[in-house]
């Protein structure tokens, strides 16, 4: 492959991914802003709505902040570290933060599905819970595997 074609290809890929993340950030902060307005507006009409609207605002703010973190991390990947330092970096990168991320994201999905299917029947309550549990399990198993591989390699490196 011609090197200039290759450069433009990877630049395009980088741009595409970063644009997608930017889009997610804009949507999240836009919805957070809408919910702040909603919280203030409905508080004067029905003060009990403050809890539900505040949760909405917090969820969108959390997702916005997480997407900024992913955006920054993507730009910080450094394969030129020594293998040992890269392994330590991977272990840190795939730590419990990602578990928190998956839990927040799953809670967000579950909460919204609850709201949409708030008909009171059994299936509408169980299905979002099953969905979120599955989502969490997939994320945990994926990251745990990568983290364990890195831990195993690091252990092997440190052994005499």
């Amino acid at each position, binding site marked *: 492959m011609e090197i200039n074609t290759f*450069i433009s290809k990877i630049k395009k890929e980088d741009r595409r991914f970063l644009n997608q993340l930017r889009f997610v950030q804009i949507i999240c902060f836009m919805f957070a802003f809408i919910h702040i307005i909603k919280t203030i507006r409905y508080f004067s009409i029905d003060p009990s709505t403050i809890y539900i609207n505040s949760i909405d605002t917090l969820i969108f703010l959390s997702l916005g902040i997480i997407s900024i973190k992913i955006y920054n991390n993507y730009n910080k990947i450094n394969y030129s570290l020594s293998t040992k330092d890269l392994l330590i970096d991977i272990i840190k990168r795939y730590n419990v933060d990602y578990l928190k991320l998956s839990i927040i994201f799953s809670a967000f999905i579950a909460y919204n599905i609850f709201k949409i299917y708030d008909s009171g029947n059994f299936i509408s309550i169980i299905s979002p819970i099953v969905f979120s549990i599955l989502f969490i399990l997939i994320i945990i198993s994926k990251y745990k595997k990568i983290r364990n591989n890195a831990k195993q390699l690091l252990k092997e490196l440190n052994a005499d």
Partner: protein
Amino acid sequence: MNKEHKFNQLVKENEERIKRICKYYSNNSSAQEDMFQEILINIWKSLDTFEGRSSINTWIYRIAVNTSLTFTSKTYKRMDLIISKETNFINEFYNIEDDHPNDVLLDQLQIELNQLSVIDKALISLVLENQSIKEIANIIGITESNVKTKIHRIKRNLKDKLYNYGN
């Protein structure tokens, strides 16, 4: 010098070396091409962080070795280390003086190399690249004595296992 120019120059100067490293990890030309591109992507991504503290040689090898340890890949534990009669410094791993091992010895060496752990394969690939103990220590990030011990152990094991095949 802008990033594109720096990248072009780096790739131009190290293309053969990177391609040679790719050959260690696969004998399939399409897989080699994939790995070559993966290394280039990682060079591109890491280019902004190159501060010249380590030599360009060490920097390139770090990226190549780290890319070869494809942590997210399901197949990383089955990563092979491919050698051929043309591979340099291959005689480091058997006892006979002959620079051209017979096919049986070569086949057995190939089998034994593929039994090595991922880290040991990475170390051997650097030995085959004629990297010094100091350079390997810099690339991998462990002490020189640790590198020395590991390489000595691998060579001794291989020589023991291949003893009967070279005679």
